């Protein structure tokens, strides 16, 4: 019996939502293969999360309790996974398909002859092999891929691809381990971490609902309105490239071909025409709402619900309406 390792993405002792979603994915695989679902926690404070990891299906928790996990760039995490590969029989590794974690997978794949599939939206077992579904070309094409036989299989799981499903699982068996970091792993130092934006507002990559604003906002104050709407909905806030290039909102929140790709349950775009470069980053959203003055804007072609009108009339009214209905 092998382990399906789930590399837990966490912040301040709390697993991110995508980590719990990955446990669901691992549990589904393990149900077919008879493998064990093993969460991997690199860094401090795993004891705060044992319960929630167990309740979401982790049977084992491999824990490297050391601040070095985050003190250097990428390689401590690579070498921690190597330490686990040395000791245990591993069927596959699931990781969050986010910026920094993709680097961990890429470097591990080189060191341990792995194959990596990123941005996975579904995983299944067919004829004993794990197959990964992903959406390419801005969601226009859906593909199935697998890692070549005999190679270490690494799957980068997209946020919101799987549900969070609590089981009545007990706390996992905690197995602490140590990592003897190589000199190379200590070559690039993390000097500080700068956190930006609202701690209460979810990241657009993970949010169930994303509110996005574009050129039609006309100025940066328009994003205050976007944030107001987002906060009523518990949503994240994103922007089109026109808006980030104009300096109205940070580039980090840009949705599109040169920015982030998001797949929330609901995307609500205001003042965004929906050029192909933007659609490449949001087309796979499960539901799309558009508010735009221009009835010919291409975004209406992919909208489930569209409002042709001035966003400065519609959005404040929507905020009011949503507040009233919440009461």
């Amino acid at each position, binding site marked *: 019996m092998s382990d399906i390792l789930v590399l837990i993405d966490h912040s301040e002792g709390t697993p991110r939502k995508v980590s719990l979603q990955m446990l669901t994915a691992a549990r589904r695989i393990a149900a077919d293969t008879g493998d064990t679902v093993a969460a991997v926690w690199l860094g401090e404070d795993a004891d705060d999360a044992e319960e929630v990891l167990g309740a979401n299906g982790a049977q084992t928790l491999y824990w490297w309790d050391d601040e070095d996990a985050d003190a250097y760039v990428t390689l401590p995490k690579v070498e921690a996974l190597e330490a686990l590969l040395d000791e245990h029989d591993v069927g596959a590794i699931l990781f969050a398909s986010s910026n920094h974690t993709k680097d961990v997978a890429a470097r591990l794949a080189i060191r341990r002859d792995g194959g990596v599939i990123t941005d996975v939206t579904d995983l299944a077992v067919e004829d004993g092999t794990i197959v990964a579904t992903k959406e390419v070309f801005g969601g226009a094409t859906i593909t199935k891929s697998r890692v070549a036989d005999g190679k270490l299989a690494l799957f980068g799981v997209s946020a919101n691809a799987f549900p969070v499903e609590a089981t009545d699982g007990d706390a996992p068996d905690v197995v602490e381990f140590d990592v003897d970091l190589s000199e190379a792993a200590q070559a690039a130092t993390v000097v500080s971490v700068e956190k930006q934006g609202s701690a209460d507002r979810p990241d657009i990559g993970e949010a169930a609902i994303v509110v996005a604003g574009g050129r039609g906002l006309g100025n940066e104050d328009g994003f205050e309105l976007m944030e107001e709407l987002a906060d009523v909905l518990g949503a994240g806030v994103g922007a089109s490239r026109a808006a980030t290039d104009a300096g109205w909102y940070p580039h*980090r929140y840009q949705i599109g071909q040169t920015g982030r790709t998001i797949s929330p349950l609901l995307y609500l775009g205001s003042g965004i025409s929906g050029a192909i470069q933007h659609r490449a980053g949001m087309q796979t959203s499960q539901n799309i709402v558009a508010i735009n003055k221009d009835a010919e804007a291409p975004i209406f072609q992919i909208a489930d619900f569209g*409002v042709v009108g001035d966003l400065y009339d519609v959005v404040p009214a929507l905020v009011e309406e949503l507040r009233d209905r919440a009461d």
Partner: protein
Amino acid sequence: MKVIVPVKRVPDTAGEKVIDESTNTMDRDAGETVLCPVNEFAIEEAVKLKESTGAEVTVLLIGPEEAQSTIRKALSYGLDGAIQVTDEAITGSDAIGTARILAAALADVEFDLVIFGNQSTDARTSLVPAAVAELLDLPSLTYARFLEIDGDAITVHREHEEGWDVVESTLPAVVSVVEAINEPRYPNFKGIMAAKSKPLDVKSLADLGVEPDQVGMGDASATMYEFTSRPPKAAGTIVEDDGSGAAASDLADWMEEQKFI
């Protein structure tokens, strides 16, 4: 200082993208191709280093002869020369195979810094920069929204979902940049003309000592074996607002029906 900027020829996002059914790989000749838009941020950062430190900047591209227009486009921003790796065996290489070829090409030349774009607009895996760094045993300072060189010290602000990490290392290093890092200039007429006469060094896999069976389709570590087009979306509900914001109530009804509120 020597800087290398690996660039990629990608299908125009606005154009049609087609998967070749005989190979299950993207048909790269089906539509318009362009220099990957994310590469422009890497090139701009290299040009800035050229201006501030006199760095010599070389473009590196893997691709067939037709890709030379992409190389000239990259050179037109004012870069110094180019390396092209071309070989029939390369076709169908995945991210790991691509990284092996790039790493072999980099190992064959002198450099202090490699500047990638953080993703290509076609495959968008973001795996290549870190894989190249691993193959060369170098730090991977990726997703840079800020980069500063001081002697052989490098500081990078690595963007992530919550902000960024400030990281430090020494050269040589591999970085990738995100679009927040700068505002690329357009090539000027002088640059476009000069690009035509910049040196281009064309290499085969054999020149780099890469065995053909280490790359290409045959060695792909992950393979796509089935694909389908997403079914067209049913037309949505479109309402018109009369200027009073009244349509917001229709939208709220829809959101309630869909259980978003």
